[in-house]
């Protein structure tokens, strides 16, 4: 179980959050990239062995969307979100 740092609420249990998936690269212009690059963008999900940038939604708490860096080998959160606005 992760303890996820919410910028508004502080450390909260993972069960209060919904996983929003890894942050994908910026959407390329389909007519400016090759077919292979376009298919890669559509179908490949970042899944590195190591830190991955992820989105989480504090759906049962304050409702904030936040971005963290989580190490897939250790589940350590290696970079926390900034302060809430």
């Amino acid at each position, binding site marked *: 179980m992760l303890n996820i740092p919410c910028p508004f609420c*502080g450390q909260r249990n993972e069960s209060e959050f919904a996983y929003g998936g890894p942050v994908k690269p910026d959407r390329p212009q389909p007519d400016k990239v090759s077919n292979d690059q376009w298919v890669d963008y559509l179908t490949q999900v970042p899944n590195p062995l190591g830190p991955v940038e992820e989105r989480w939604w504090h759906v*049962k708490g*304050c409702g904030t969307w936040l971005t963290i860096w989580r190490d897939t080998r250790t589940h350590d959160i290696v970079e926390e979100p900034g302060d*809430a606005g």
Partner: protein
Amino acid sequence: MPYDVSIERLQLFSLFDLKGPRQGLTDWAGDVLNHLPKAPNQLSREDGVELCHTGANRWLLRAEIGMETDLEAKLRLETAPPEISIVKISDTMTFFRVTGEDAIQVMSIGCPLDLHADAFAAQAVSFTEFFNCRALVLRCRGGFDVAVEQSFADMIADYLDRATI
């Protein structure tokens, strides 16, 4: 051995969901909203009106149901400016009051928050999880108030009954 706890399903409260910048809300309805708490997940009480800071630019107003008409008139919901939102949600949430010596033990069965007094003080309030539902938790005299979406209330009442056996 059963828990030393008392569980009560409370009558409706007057509830208003407030969204928008603090300044916009206080400019619009300063006589009611003049004590909006600044710190996250904190509550302030004044003249029977409780204001809970539940999210960034988001507050919840709670008061006795008898104050609803008066509050509606003061908050002027329909004519609020576009940068703020004030919505009456009185009938969308059901409150349970969990009190007694073992109230914190029963709460800890359904809620992952640390509810000890040093971590969750008298003025603390927060949306969190309660038996897998989104719930508002705050302290009351001798225990805790928990609010869940009203459609889950019967289920939560059943869970609380089972948890306290």
